[in-house]
């Protein structure tokens, strides 16, 4: 079985860690009989500094041909004002592809020391299902904007309303419910903690 996956190394350490990850994924494919056809995308600070392009229409068109995107998670560069790359690339991808869930597994791995007394791997294993495109998590960029927060929020919400008009709260609840209902998952809870990180 072949899967087509887009790879975005991004900035900073991104290309190195994505290279390591691809090596591991490819090895899993050799063992279990699947093959990943990787296509690399040059999206990030370097290109922006050279051409002024963030996420282009062509990027979106090409990215939409893939089953998944493997991303270094790393958008940000000392030479670019904070917020430009985060909004122009990270958030642009998120909203265009309606990535409405931010799914984060939290698991204490065997061999990792924890400051929590007497906790073992079986004690810490949960999944955070977070709204990714609406509510408090509107995507202000990676830096807290301090007293300018309200203004930024309005700008982002305007873009969001005009361009996307998403209503996904029910979906997030549904996914959280499904995970909580799966074997071994016993509890779930809700939180409305605002976030300012992308």
């Amino acid at each position, binding site marked *: 079985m072949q899967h087509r996956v887009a790879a975005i190394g991004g900035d900073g350490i991104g290309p*190195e860690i994505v290279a*390591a990850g691809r*090596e*591991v994924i490819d090895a*899993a494919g050799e063992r279990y009989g699947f093959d990943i056809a990787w296509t690399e995308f040059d999206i990030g600070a370097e290109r922006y500094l050279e051409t002024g392009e963030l996420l282009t229409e062509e990027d979106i068109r090409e990215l939409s041909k893939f089953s998944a995107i493997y991303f270094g998670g790393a958008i*940000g560069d000392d030479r670019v004002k904070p917020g430009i790359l985060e909004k122009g690339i990270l958030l642009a991808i998120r909203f265009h592809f309606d990535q409405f869930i931010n*799914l984060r597994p939290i698991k204490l791995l065997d*061999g990792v020391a924890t400051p929590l007394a007497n906790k073992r791997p079986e004690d810490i294993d949960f999944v955070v299902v977070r709204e990714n495109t609406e509510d408090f998590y509107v995507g202000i960029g990676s830096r807290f904007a301090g007293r300018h927060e309200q203004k930024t929020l309005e700008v982002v919400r305007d873009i969001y309303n005009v361009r996307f008009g998403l209503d996904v709260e029910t979906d997030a609840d549904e996914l959280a419910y499904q995970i909580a209902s799966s074997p071994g998952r016993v509890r779930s809870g809700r939180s409305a903690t605002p976030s300012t990180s992308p």
Partner: protein
Amino acid sequence: MFEPIHGSAPKYRGQDVANPLATVWAGSMLLDHLGEHEGAAAVLRAIERSILDGYVTRDMGGARKTSEVGRHLASLVRTV
């Protein structure tokens, strides 16, 4: 889209010192998304094995480079 939640750490760029485990774990989630559940589980087992063996980058008290950890995990994922 599958990604580690940490940032780009520009000052460590190109030094081969960054810890790739979060990215590798995101890779495991990517495999789950593609329906390759056995592969996804093996990747997580490889991460655990590597940590137990102390084959980790310096932020976790080890002495291995990013690329070395990647190679080691790739080798582990074939057997664990």
